[in-house]
């Protein structure tokens, strides 16, 4: 009997092949010598996307380690609430057509998810420490569009807007 464990709350408990293998190989002399047994690269869109979201989730969790003033000015460190909400938003983005470019702490205190599209189009979602959320669409030669939104109720609409724009 192998009971299936309950799902974990955060997204990063689950590794995808390439990352697991590279980490193991890097830490073990034995596996360094036998690195050819590992899959080299994934040709699958599915696995590539899983790997990408795993890395973004790792980045989100690591955002907690920033300290106040991390930007050389007076930016607040991301708090637990903004990190948790960013993880929730990432899991919704994972089901959309969007591919985030990076996750970074926000200078306004919180976490930002950035996107890059065609023709220099860019987008950012910010989940701030005070519970507010906002999005911004911008890029060279493109008008800026930005607004606050409710991340509990408005997210599907905002993600659709990002898909259209990018």
């Amino acid at each position: 009997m192998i009971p299936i464990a309950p799902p974990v709350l955060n997204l990063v408990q689950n590794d995808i092949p390439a990352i697991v293998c590279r980490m193991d190989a890097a830490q073990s002399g034995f596996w360094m010598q036998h690195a050819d047994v590992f899959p080299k690269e994934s040709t699958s869109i599915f696995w590539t996307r899983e790997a990408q979201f795993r890395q973004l989730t790792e980045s989100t969790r690591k955002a907690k380690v920033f300290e106040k003033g991390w930007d050389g000015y007076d930016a607040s460190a991301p708090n637990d609430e903004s990190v948790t909400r960013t993880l929730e938003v990432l899991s919704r983005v994972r089901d959309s057509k969007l591919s985030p470019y990076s996750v970074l702490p926000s200078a306004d205190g919180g976490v930002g998810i950035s996107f890059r599209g065609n023709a220099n189009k860019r987008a950012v979602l910010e989940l701030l420490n005070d519970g507010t959320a906002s999005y911004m669409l911008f890029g060279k030669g493109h008008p800026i569009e930005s607004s606050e939104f409710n991340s509990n109720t408005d997210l599907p609409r905002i993600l659709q807007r990002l898909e259209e724009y990018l």
Partner: protein
Amino acid sequence: MAYEPQHLKNAPIVEAMIAFDFVVAEGELGQIRRSFIEQIQVEYPVQTPIQKAEVTFNPEGSTGKTNEVGSRCVSTGGKNVCAISEQTFICSRLHPYENWESLQSEFQRLWQVFASFGKVQVTKVAVRYINKILLREGSEIFDSVFTYPKIADGLPQNTFNVFVRLQIAIPEPQGTLIVTEAQLPPEKPQFVAIALDHDLQFPVTEETGDIWALLEKARELKNQYFFASISDELMKEYL
């Protein structure tokens, strides 16, 4: 394998792929690829280069370079992807999967366009289906999925992070089945998500004959292997 439906209406497929490995005369691939992606640009408008980074570490420091080794072309709507790398031509269909016929005909159509730009020799035929299976938390894995690690009785039994990769010889036609299974991030309360990935690869030799007949055989085997891998009860959920 108690029963084998022809088509699962709600198949758990998240990505279906058909691929050919190929060789071309040295120095010709770049031009063939450029001509091909230009030809399909209207139907596959999102075209991005596939880049390969090489980093060399040594005691004196590190060096690195990035080379463009292929192109990835995404259809309008984003559900079909055609990727050409140094030696592989792939067509992917993402969720929602339609059926084999539509994937196979699109692959064949695009391959014929690609092959029309130069002398291209197929060296391998591959079919790969990736399924996402949701199992109720706390259920017995072997009641649903039959290829999975068995943990020795003396070990704790609660797994929370699973990755399995098996390479299995296919006897006839000779080939390789690569089975990859991994536990995925949770996405539905009370359920655990598992990826079941079957990659069937068949080298093309002088004895192979018609590669499209080999592809059909690959299709039969991928169905057979999938139906043999899950329980009838789980399969009923996809009918």
